[in-house]
């Protein structure tokens, strides 16, 4: 670094990820890169990184075999899914009530069982 107004390697390296996708660096960064022996290599690392990341889009991963079938059926089943959702939403209170009654019944049965065991023991 010959002049104090010029950017340091640390300052430049902090900014390099922003130029990884090929965007033109600012004039001050370019000036530094043209004179620094190490920072252009660092810039090249970021560019290689993003260039390779971009290729991952076409690197497909094997989806489950049944996925294609279920996705293809969406037009014929979307309506049915909506009907089920609307039904569940409308009857949410009734379902919650039913669940509460079932829970209360189970608790009552458990209590009754405990009481019966105590009586038998006595």
């Amino acid at each position, binding site marked *: 670094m010959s002049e104090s107004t010029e950017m340091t390697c640390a300052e430049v390296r902090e900014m390099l*990820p*922003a130029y*990884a*996708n090929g965007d033109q660096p600012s004039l001050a960064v370019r000036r530094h890169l043209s004179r620094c022996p*190490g920072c252009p*290599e*660092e810039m*090249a*690392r*970021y*560019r*290689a*990184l*993003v260039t*390779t*990341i*971009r*290729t*991952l*889009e*076409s*690197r*497909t*991963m094997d*989806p*489950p075999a049944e*996925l*294609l079938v*279920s*996705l*293809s059926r*969406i*037009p*014929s089943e*979307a309506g049915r*899914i909506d009907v089920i959702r609307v039904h569940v939403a409308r009857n949410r209170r009734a379902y919650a009530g039913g669940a509460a009654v079932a829970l209360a019944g189970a608790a009552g049965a458990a209590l009754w069982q405990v009481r019966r065991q105590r009586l038998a023991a006595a």
Partner: protein
Amino acid sequence: MSLELVESCKKGDEAAWGQLVEATYREVYGLCLRILRDPDDAAEATQDAYLKAWRALGGFRGDSMFSTWLYRVAANSAISKLRGRKRRREHEAQTDEETLAQAPGSASTHGSALASLDREQLEQALRSLAEHYRVAVVLRDVYGLSIEEIAKEMKISETAAKVRVHRGRKKLRDLMFEDSNE
């Protein structure tokens, strides 16, 4: 992806829909898997994404590429799933230190940095990134969403989205070129 195919789907053509799905579902599943890291969750998010896409197709005006539009829908589904999962499993969040501890091993860095990087190693490095960086980098650098689109899908400011992409790239660089840190 031809616009004609999309237009046929808008009219309810189920055969066209089948073709559209066949042409795109691997990439959409890949996007969901890269965000969620779990194959079952990714398959569910993919189904949700296509259901949303089927319903919202009428709103696609062709201003952007169809694949970009579909990626946004998929990102929305995957991020929603991520939030739901996070509520169930609060401990999922990783610290930066943990992330770095899980480094996949460095790429060959003694040669030129321009040497092509190992894609599997890069996938592994992406998977090991903390969630908020991983989602931002995957959407920006793998699927080409804009900072504005990422901010909308992640429900954060554009500045925050930009910072996440920036820091995510930095962490990836550290993971991939481990022995070149000065």
